[in-house]
């Protein structure tokens, strides 16, 4: 896939399931190994949940623009919101040894993705870019059949 696939959803949690289905279908279509797909789905879902919760403060009718590309084994997701900006230095996962509710979403993203960048260099909102090198994770390179 060298094309970019774009999806825009309202900032309503009820559309998270739809987003997950799109990511799952996209990665399945493009031969990504089935073990890694749920992890990538989780990252996109967590990123969108964070936008709904923190950037838009739960307001359900704001846009979340998501674009996906898978080129030469690199999966890239860009997620744009127009809500409250925050200092990327403040976006920290909680220490994993602390057993308490909350703060795991960012931890999952950082743990699973190879590269995570938050760009607030714009008038409104944030552009989150997440990348994962899937070389070796494509079923065809592992001799698997779909």
């Amino acid at each position, binding site marked *: 896939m060298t094309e970019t696939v774009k999806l825009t959803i309202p900032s309503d*949690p*009820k559309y*998270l*399931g739809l987003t*997950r289905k799109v990511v799952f279908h996209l990665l399945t279509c493009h031969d990504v190994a089935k073990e890694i797909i*749920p*992890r990538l*789905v*989780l990252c996109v*879902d*967590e990123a969108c*949940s964070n936008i*709904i*919760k923190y950037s838009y403060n739960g307001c359900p009718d704001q846009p979340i623009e998501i674009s996906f590309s898978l080129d030469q084994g690199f999966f890239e997701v860009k997620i744009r919101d127009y809500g409250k900006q925050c200092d990327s230095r403040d976006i920290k996962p909680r220490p*994993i*040894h602390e*057993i*308490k*509710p*909350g*703060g*795991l*979403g960012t*931890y*999952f993203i950082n*743990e*699973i993705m190879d590269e995570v960048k938050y760009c607030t260099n714009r008038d409104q909102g944030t552009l989150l870019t997440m990348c994962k090198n899937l070389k070796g994770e494509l079923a065809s390179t592992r001799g698997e059949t779909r």
Partner: protein
Amino acid sequence: MSIGMQTNHSDNGVVTLLIEGDIDMSSSTVVRTHLTDLFDKNQKAIVVDLSKVSYIDSSGIATLVEGLQWSHANNTKFRLTRLTPMVKDVFEIARLLTVFEVFDSNEEALEGV
């Protein structure tokens, strides 16, 4: 995304809760409310059957962590059973598989409570 919950009360104060569906930001509050009701009834033990949960996110994990903390505070049991591969993987990434009491079957989870 709808979520289903089925509760089975036994005579000895043990409750088995079967959750069906995806546990995400839109449904974790429903699960939390349901669990809180069970906590308020001061059950001896709650066994959560996750065999019908194909997806869980950090809000779902947080809800289950709250359940665990409640059980510690009240000296009761809070056990998880039959984790699907996706759910198990998320628990592994979060390094929570050894924090919770996790069982492969409801029968094993019900032993010794």
